[in-house]
Each structure stands twice: as C-alpha cells, then as structure tokens.
C-alpha cells in the first residue's frame, strides 16, 4: 500500500494572477481543459469523490444550449468549515474555477448555492463577483454567476436536493439516474462541483496536471484542505497531501491522548487508535470531504454517537422510509441500550438496520448513516453499553 507522510501544501490559498490563467484557458480547446483535469486524477472534494474531469466530459457531451455550472457551497457536514475559509480568502479562485468549468462544458450560467449559515460572507462575495465579471468580460468569456442562499437544511448539500431548493421546492433528493450532467438544475445539463474542487481544477490548469498528480497516491491524487477540530492543540484549516496515515495525522494534530479520529464528519468513519497505523486518509482508506475530528480518552463515544444520530434524525428530509424511520430508530435504540431497557445484543439488530439503510435509502444521507454508526459501535461497544 502506497503511503505518504504528512506534507503541508499551499495550492488552494496561493495568490495567483487570475487574468493570466483565465486568458490561457480561454485559448485552450474545450477537450484540452477536460483532458488536463482528467489527467490530474482530481476527484470531487465535497466527499463523494467523483472524478471531476469525467463529470465535465459528460456535461460537455450533452447537446443543449442551456447548461449550468453550480458551485456547491452548502457545506454542512459536522466538522467541515473549509469552504467558508476558501470563499472568505480566495473567492476569486472559486469564480475562476466556475468559468473554467463553463468553458469546458459549454455553459453560460453559473449559480453559487451558499449555505444560510454563511450569509454574513455574502456582501464581500458579491463585491468580488463584480470585479470577476468585469475581468472575464475583458478576456471575452460569455458567462455570469448568480447567488442562491440555503436556509439551514443539511440535505441541500446533496446535489439533486440542492437543485430542488434552487427551483423553490422542499430540498428532497431526486431519483438517479438521470444524473445532473444530463438533467440537473431546471432539468438542464449541469456540472455541480464543490467549492474546493473548482479551485483545485483551476490550479491544475495553472500548474499542469503532471505537477499536480505527483502529489498524493494512485487512488487519491493531489492535496486536500482539512478542517481540523476536537481535542487538538491546533484546530483550524490545513492543506495536506493525500495519502498520509491516520497515525501521521495524529502525530501532528493530536494532543498525545487521541483515542479516535472521526474522518469525514457524521457521515464518515470512526478510526480507533489500534487502526491509526494501517488506515490511509484518502479514497483507498477513509475518504473525507475534509472533516477531521479528534477525540481523546476523556470523551464518551456514546455521546459522540448520540450527537450524530440526533443530527441525522433532524436532518433526514423524511422523503424515504428507510432513512426517516431508520435514523429515529437508531437513536432510540442506542438510548434504550444505554439505559439497559434492552439487552446489549440489541446492538446487533441496530447494525442490521444500518446495513438496510445503506442499500434501501434514496440518497447519500441515509446511505452513510451506517458508516459512523457501525465504526463507533464496533470499536467502542463497551462505551455504548455501559
């Protein structure tokens, strides 16, 4: 297994001459931009990890004059705050990534869907947008971006729920297929990309796919912005090369007493101390949209699990039964086990329920509740029971 050490990188926040990069991109054929992004090995940075170049290729292949680029700035995963930092510090690079995607795909409209919790950023983002529109107008691009605000629904980070929300409906995910590249916002071909993905794609075009793909491992190319919180002396935003072990991460960010790291937020995986050494942070091990939470031995993993289940029970959109009822029952179930109202073996039934939710739920929310549930219950069973 290919492993990397802990290596700090500065790509996302690096100041660049946007005009220079976008002028070069303006003169590149569509296919060349897509090929470069494909060659870089970049996978979506929101969490799901779909290859970005492929997404653009599919959207580009659609024959429709009305296509959209959507920037998913609805980061709501517990423990994730990197997109806020990116928008706060380098919004012009996010917009640059969007116009690059637009050129690759053949779109003229872009929408940024910003979570309601980040509304305080909107004035400065709009100010930056005015400058951006002027800049790309001078280069010759025919593209414009508008903003849509979320209103506090976690599920709207799911792409099709986000489209529903933009269109003025409840944020309930759609059936897939069709995928957004065929039928996205307003049922038009849409490339929807995470904030960080767009900036990374722009940097791939600036530095070339060869230099980018030297970072990381075969399955997890490049670097990634991590949101680090919990029991750590240095919480915050760090851009790190992918492919490090959880151990290397804990050596740098732990407080000397780390017993578990939750990788990927409430919908991610709990890695216990005994697995630090052999678990890689990346698509070959534990994938993450950036959320890294450290827990030391003073923390009850029951409280952690309870907090996550409470979160999911509230944030499930309620559309499909496995997720709506499943989240509630998992929460009630662990409460009953803790209180001793049922035998501890009942946890096995709950694990089966989590497995069922994984296959039967309509979208990523219900499908991923089992990740944290199972990894916490399996590794900290005694803390859940006693």
């Amino acid at each position, binding site marked *: 297994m290919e492993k990397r050490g802990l290596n700090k990188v500065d790509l996302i926040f690096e100041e660049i001459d946007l005009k220079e990069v976008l002028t070069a991109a303006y003169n590149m054929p569509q296919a060349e931009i897509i090929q470069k992004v494909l060659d870089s090995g970049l996978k979506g940075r929101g969490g799901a990890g779909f290859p970005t170049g492929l997404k653009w290729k599919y959207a580009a292949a659609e024959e429709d004059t009305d296509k959209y680029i959507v920037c998913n700035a609805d980061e709501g995963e517990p423990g994730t705050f990197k997109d806020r930092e990116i928008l706060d510090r380098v919004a012009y690079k996010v917009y640059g990534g969007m116009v690059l995607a637009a050129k690759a795909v053949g779109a003229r409209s872009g929408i940024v869907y910003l979570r309601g*919790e980040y509304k305080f950023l909107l004035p400065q983002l709009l100010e930056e947008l005015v400058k951006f529109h002027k800049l790309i107008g001078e280069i010759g691009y025919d593209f414009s971006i508008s903003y849509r605000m979320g209103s506090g629904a976690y599920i709207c980070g799911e792409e099709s729920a986000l489209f529903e*929300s933009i269109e003025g409906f409840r944020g309930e995910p759609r059936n897939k297929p069709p995928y957004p590249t065929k039928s996205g916002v307003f049922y038009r071909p849409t490339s929807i990309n995470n904030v960080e993905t767009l900036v990374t794609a722009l940097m791939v075009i600036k530095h070339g796919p060869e230099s980018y793909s030297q970072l990381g491992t075969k399955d997890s190319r490049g670097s990634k912005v991590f949101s680090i919180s919990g029991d750590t002396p240095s919480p915050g935003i760090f851009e790190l090369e992918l492919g490090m072990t959880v151990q290397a991460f804990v050596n740098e960010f732990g407080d000397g007493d780390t017993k578990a790291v939750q990788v990927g937020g409430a919908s991610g995986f709990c890695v216990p101390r005994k697995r630090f050494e052999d678990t890689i942070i990346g698509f070959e091990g534990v994938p993450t949209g950036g959320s890294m939470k450290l827990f030391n031995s003073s923390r009850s993993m029951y409280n952690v699990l309870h*907090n996550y289940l409470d979160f999911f029970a509230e944030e499930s959109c309620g559309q499909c039964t496995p997720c709506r009822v499943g989240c509630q029952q998992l929460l009630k179930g662990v409460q009953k086990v803790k209180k001793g109202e049922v035998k501890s073996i009942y946890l096995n039934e709950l694990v089966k329920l989590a497995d069922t939710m994984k296959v039967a739920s309509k979208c990523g929310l219900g499908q991923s509740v089992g990740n944290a549930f199972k990894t916490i219950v399996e590794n900290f069973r005694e803390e859940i029971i006693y």
Partner: protein
Amino acid sequence: MYQLGNLVKELSEKHGKSRESLMPILQGVVDQHSYLSDEAMVEIANELDISAAEVYGTASFYTFLDTKERGRYVIRVCKTITCAMKGKNEILQTLEDMLKIKVGEMTVDRQFSLLESNCIGWCHKAPAMLINEIPYTELTPEKVVEIIKSYMQKK
C-alpha cells in the same frame, strides 16, 4: 419594519414571480420579520399565484424559514459535537439565565428567540452561535453576557 403587503410586492418585483423566486422571497420576509406568519405565506401565495399549501410546504422544510413567531434577534447556539464538547451547555445556560427563557422560546418583549442549531461551521472556534446572520465564536459565559448586553442596547 416594512408593511407585509408592500414587502412581498417589493420582493417579487426584485426576484420575479416564478416558482424559483419562492426561496428568495421567503428569505426576504424572514430577514425583515424574523418568521413567516400565516398572513405572509398567503400573501406570497397570492403574489406568485400558487397554493398557500405549496408555500407552507417549502417554508416548513427549512430550519431558517421559521413558521413560528420569533424575536427580532434569533440566537442559534450550535449543538453539534465539537461545540457540545467545548462547553455549549454552559453557553445555553448563560443565555437562558440572562434572557429568562428556555430553548425554543421568545422573550416577552419579542426581542430575542433562543434556539439550538446543527453544525454552523465554526468547529475550530467552538463553542459558537449565530445571532441572526452574525457568527460569534470561541464563546465563554462572560463573552456571551457582553454580546447580549450590546444587543439589548440596540433597542
């Protein structure tokens, strides 16, 4: 505070009358009135020529689009894991003592509502809260008292 009918008209002129204008209009009303009253939702439904049930259906899905009366300042204390670990309960207690209300309630003078919220994206500076759209981070009980006092003086 705008009068409701004028506000809805103004918002529909700005955002349009199609279905996709619904969210911005709902958000615009909440910005001014802190919540969506039944009258507001009926007004919006008439303006966009859709059923009031459609308006309520959309509004009631979103946590920030309250259909229950809220105060002028809506306080949302983050309750997700990192904030919970870093002293959220103390923060809530301080707010409850100071405002003399419980979570979910509004002060008698309609100035403050106290709510809990899921992750608001400030885990590295926990505990955190929002007052309307403004984030406050690395909270301590003392800091909270100062912040609330400054809002009380805004009356």
